[in-house]
């Protein structure tokens, strides 16, 4: 029967499944390998090194990104980054990146903190949660596929949902005047 046939074909496909839709539970799946320690201790601003940046698998996974969004609120990132708009801390939804826009750079910023007020969350926030945060932060400037990036929240809407943001082309900038 035609129906059955189609279902069988789909069954073959499904052996792979659709990673976007899986629910990787922290600890369970392979999170991105932590960037090498050299880069970890590298605080100098400006161009991220040309060397390979490990990709963040969570950037392909809608559930992980939405977890990142939840943690972003929970860990009160809004306190300084005001839902990406920027306040005491720099905005995260624009194209300007002081310490680099690659997942590894953002990971380092969160884990080690940065001068001028960004605290270090190393140890406090487990690794896979950091990677979830990294994925979400990159969605704020439209770096993620729109079918992975979060839709609007059930809250007062701060503006366009991440999934509908224009993709910014990240540019590196020096520290803002205020911070000097």
């Amino acid at each position, binding site marked *: 029967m035609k129906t059955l046939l189609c279902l069988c074909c789909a069954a073959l496909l499904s052996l792979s499944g659709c990673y976007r839709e899986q*629910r990787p*539970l922290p600890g369970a799946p392979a999170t991105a390998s932590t960037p090498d320690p050299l880069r970890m201790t590298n605080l100098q601003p400006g161009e991220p090194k040309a060397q390979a940046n490990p990709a963040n698998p969570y950037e392909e996974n809608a559930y992980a990104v939405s977890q990142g969004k939840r943690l972003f609120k*929970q860990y009160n990132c809004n306190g300084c980054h005001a839902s990406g708009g920027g306040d005491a801390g720099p905005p995260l939804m624009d194209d300007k990146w002081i310490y680099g826009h690659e997942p590894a750079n953002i990971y380092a910023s969160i884990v080690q903190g940065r001068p001028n007020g960004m605290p270090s969350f190393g140890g406090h*926030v*487990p690794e896979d*949660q950091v990677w979830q945060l990294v994925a979400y932060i990159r969605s704020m400037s439209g770096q993620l596929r729109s079918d992975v990036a979060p839709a609007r929240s059930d809250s007062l809407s701060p503006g366009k949902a991440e999934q509908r943001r224009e993709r910014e082309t990240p540019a590196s900038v020096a520290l803002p005047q205020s911070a000097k």
Partner: protein
Amino acid sequence: MKRIAALPVLSLAGAAAMAAPFQNALKPAGIQAERIHDLWLLTVGICSVVFAAVLVALLLALSRAGRSDAATPPDVASLAAPEPRLKRNVLLAVGASIALLLVLIVADFQTDRLLGRMPLSDAVHIEVTAHQWWWEARYNDPEPGKIFTTANELHIPVGRPVIMTLKSSDVIHTFWLPNLHGKKDMIPGRTSLIRLRADQPGTYRGQCAEFCGLEHAMMAFLVTAEPNDRYEAWADAQRREASNVLSARESRGRQVFMERSCVMCHTVQGSGANAVFGPDLTHVASRQTLASGVLPNNRQQMAAWVTQPQKLKPGTNMPATKLSGEELEALLDYLGTLK
């Protein structure tokens, strides 16, 4: 295969701990559940009678009716002539069913009125907030100093009315404590009230009844109904801050608590940890269960819960925390002091 779950191995001890408290609508232990149970008995009685009557009528019909096969000529007389006997019997049956329905409807209205009329003097006010997938309970009091918060395990005084304000912090949950009362939804953006009273002391188990996501199945809570004086004693204990008189190991444990992920979500009154995204742990050691009614609260389960929560409650928002053996032992010691 990717869909095979991580194995939540609940030890037999766990099962036992869960077996003790009941969760049963047919064992009312409070006035509200009693009233519903009375209505239940009446309704089931009437329905059984009706069911029996219909079946008897059917069987009689089958036994007395003649037999036939496809060749038997159809009897179309009824198209021409009315059938008064059938008419009378059908009308009688319909009349009887209408009458019984009216009885049931009246009884139901009556029960609703009674449920709304529970005396409320000297009530305990509790604000219960549901989270994915645990329960937060805030005991309100006219004196701000006497307000305290706990999680997943409530104590209430026997014979005193309890007024619960129900809220949700994320999706729709339903508060259900079958031995004491029926359900009430907890709908984000709305608050609702549930009034109940425990008339027999005991520990009763409740569970979220509205599908609320990955761990809907593991969102239970315990309510302990006890004499007023013991309740007051418990409440006083809950109001106390965690003591800071700690052994070296214990204060090392507190250091771990403060430096690792625990502090990001949990509160321990008096320790400086005051995040509100997980259950308040000020008196965690005084509770019977962990992970909202899923695990018995003992040292070994606590260790498993801290280090690999996803194995015990897949989908929970509690992150796995990597700890050295020494850190873990110290942390467990510290948590053990939170009585």
